[in-house]
C-alpha cells in the first residue's frame, strides 16, 4: 500500500516501507558520466583501498561520455583518458553514443521497478519508465560502485494530475513550465513527484521523459509515471528482462496539483530561474543570437520532427544561428533517414555529435558576453552556456524552431 515510490521500495526490500524512514537498498544500476566519474573514482579508490577494489558488478555499472564529446580541451581529454583506463581495469564498457539519460533507457538498462542512481541530477528522467531513479554526487556514486547499495529517506510525494488535451501549438515542454511555475523551484525539494491523469496516459514515453526530466527543476528527488501498455510497448525489443507493473495503491500524497492542459499556451522560462515563466505572447520583442535544439529534455525524435516540420524548406534568420544536437546515435540515425537533419542543415543550422552539446557551456555553441539564447534545455541559470552576462530562455522545440526563422522569440502558432 502506498505511493509508487513506496511500492517500489517495498517490492525491493520485501517489506512495507514507511514515509520518512531511512532505508539501505541494493541498486540495479549505477551511472556516471565524463564530468562526474573522476571524483567518483577517487571516492571508490578510498573505499576499496584495503580490498580488491572491484566494482560491485561491471555489467550494472555504466559510464557514459556525453558532456564534452569529442573532448574539446586537453583537460577534458586527460580526464577521459583516465576514466577509460579505470573502465578497462574494471571491465566496464564506456558508452559514447549520446546523452546518458537517453542512452540508458534506449539500451534497455532501465525497467519498471528498478532502483537506479546516477551522478547527474537529471537521472530522474528514468522515472518515466516507472523506475526509482535519482541524481547524486560523485561520492555517493563511488559508494554505489563499490557496494552496490545506497541509502534513502523514503520521500513524501506530490501528485501532479494532468487532464485535458494539448491545444494547438502547445507541447509537453509547455506543460512542464506550468508545473514549475505552480510548484516553484524548490516546492518538491526532498519529495517524489508522481504524474498521473488522463493526459499522461495518452502521452508517449518521450513526452513522459520530458516531464520526469524536469522534476529536479522543482527540487524533486524523482519524477515517476506508473508503467502501462505504452511503457511495455516502448520496452519491447529493448529488454527481455521480466519486470513488475507496480502502481500506487491507496497512496497518501502530501499534495495534489491538477493541471488542465486545455487552458495552456506556449510558454517561455525567462532567465535566470526556471519558474520565471510567461506565455510566449507576453515576452515582448526579444532578439535571439542563438537557438539550441537538443538535450535530455527535448533532443528526441519527436522533438526533432516538430522542429523539422516548421523549418522544412526555410532558412534561419541571418542574425541568428542554430545548433541541433540529437540526444543519441539512435535518434541521429533515424533523424537522418527521415530527412530531418537535411532540413536543419539546409536551413543553416549546425548539427552536432549526440551528447549534451552546448547545454553546459563548454563547447559547440558557447555564448559571448551579452548574447541571448533560446533553447530546449531544462536550465536557464546565469552563465550556464558561456559568459555570465549572456542570457538563456527556455522553450519548446516548436518555439525554438519558430524563433530560428524570425530571429526573435516567436509564438509557434504564428508559423505552424
Amino acid at each position: 500500500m502506498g505511493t509508487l515510490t513506496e511500492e517500489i521500495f517495498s517490492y525491493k526490500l520485501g517489506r512495507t516501507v514507511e514515509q520518512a524512514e531511512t532505508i539501505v537498498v541494493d541498486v540495479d544500476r549505477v551511472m556516471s558520466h565524463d564530468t562526474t566519474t573522476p571524483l567518483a573514482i577517487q571516492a571508490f579508490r578510498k573505499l576499496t583501498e584495503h580490498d580488491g577494489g572491484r566494482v560491485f558488478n561491471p555489467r550494472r555499472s555504466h559510464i557514459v561520455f556525453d558532456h564534452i564529446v569529442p573532448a574539446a580541451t586537453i583537460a577534458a581529454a586527460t580526464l577521459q583518458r583516465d576514466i577509460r583506463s579505470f573502465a578497462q581495469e574494471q571491465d566496464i564498457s564506456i558508452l559514447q553514443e549520446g546523452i546518458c539519460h537517453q542512452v540508458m533507457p534506449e539500451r534497455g538498462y532501465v525497467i519498471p521497478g528498478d532502483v537506479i542512481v546516477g551522478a547527474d541530477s537529471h537521472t530522474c528522467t528514468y522515472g518515466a519508465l516507472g523506475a526509482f531513479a535519482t541524481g547524486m554526487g560523485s561520492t555517493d556514486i563511488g559508494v554505489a560502485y563499490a557496494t552496490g547499495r545506497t541509502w534513502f529517506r523514503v520521500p513524501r510525494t506530490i501528485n501532479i494530475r494532468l487532464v485535458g488535451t494539448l491545444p494547438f501549438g502547445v507541447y509537453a515542454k509547455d506543460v512542464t513550465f506550468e508545473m514549475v511555475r505552480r510548484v516553484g523551484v524548490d516546492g518538491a525539494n526532498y519529495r517524489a513527484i508522481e504524474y498521473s491523469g488522463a493526459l499522461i496516459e495518452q502521452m508517449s514515453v518521450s513526452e513522459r521523459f520530458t516531464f520526469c526530466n524536469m522534476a529536479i527543476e522543482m527540487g524533486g528527488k524523482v519524477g515517476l509515471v506508473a508503467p502501462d501498455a505504452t511503457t511495455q510497448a516502448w520496452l519491447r525489443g529493448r529488454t527481455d528482462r521480466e519486470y513488475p507493473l507496480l502502481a500506487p495503491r491507496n497512496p497518501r500524497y502530501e499534495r495534489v496539483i491538477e493541471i488542465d492542459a486545455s487552458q495552456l499556451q506556449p510558454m517561455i522560462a525567462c532567465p535566470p530561474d526556471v519558474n520565471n515563466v510567461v506565455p510566449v505572447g507576453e515576452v515582448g520583442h526579444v532578439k535571439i543570437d542563438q537557438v539550441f535544439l537538443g538535450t535530455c529534455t527535448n533532443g528526441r525524435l519527436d522533438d526533432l520532427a516538430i522542429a523539422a516540420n516548421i523549418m522544412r524548406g526555410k532558412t534561419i534568420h541571418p542574425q541568428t544561428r542554430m545548433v541541433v544536437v540529437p540526444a543519441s546515435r539512435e535518434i541521429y540515425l533515424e533523424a537522418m533517414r527521415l530527412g530531418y537533419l537535411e532540413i536543419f542543415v539546409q536551413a543553416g543550422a549546425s548539427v552536432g555529435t549526440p551528447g549534451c552539446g552546448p547545454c553546459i557551456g563548454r563547447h559547440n555553441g558557447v555564448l559571448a558576453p551579452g548574447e541571448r539564447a533560446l533553447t530546449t534545455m531544462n536550465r536557464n541559470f546565469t552563465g550556464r552556456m558561456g559568459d555570465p552576462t549572456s542570457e538563456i530562455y527556455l522553450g519548446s522545440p516548436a518555439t525554438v524552431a519558430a524563433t530560428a526563422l524570425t530571429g526573435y522569440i516567436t509564438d509557434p502558432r504564428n508559423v505552424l
Partner: protein
Amino acid sequence: MSRIWMLGDNVNTDVIIPGRYNVTTDRAQLACYCLCEVLPEFSQQVQEGDVVMAGHNFGCGSSREHAPAAILACGVHVIIARSFARIFYRNAVNIGLPVLVCEEAVLASADGQQIDVDLKTGAIHNRTTGQAFQAEPLDPFVERIVAAGGIIEYICQEGTLR
C-alpha cells in the same frame, strides 16, 4: 570567530562552480573560481573558518560535487541556510562539509558580521549583534555520517553501508 558571507535564495551549483571551470579534480583549482559569478571577491578574500550563509534552496541544480568541494577547499567552516537543495546537502555531508539549517540566524544576520558556530551542538552566536540561535537537529542517519567525517569514513568505520 568568523566572518559571514551572505548569499540569497536559489544559489545554484552553476554559479557556485561554473561548468567551464569544473573539468578537474584539483580542489585548489576549484577553490579559485568558487562563487565567481555572484561574489567575485570571495575566493580571494575568504579566510579559513569563515561561514557562508544563504537563503532557501542553496545548491540547487546540477549534482556536481565540485560545488561543495570548492567551498570546502576555500576553508569555509560551515554553511548555514534557510534550506538546502537535496543533492547538494547530501554531497556536503558525504565529503565532510558541515551544513546547518537555521532560518532565524540567516534572517537576523548580515554580510560581514562576526559569528561563532558550535558544530557539535548547532549553537550559533552572532557576535556582532549578540544574538544566539539554535540550528535544526540533523536526521539521525545523517548525524552518524557527519560524526564519522563523511560517508567514506562512515562506511570504513562500520565495515559496510547499513
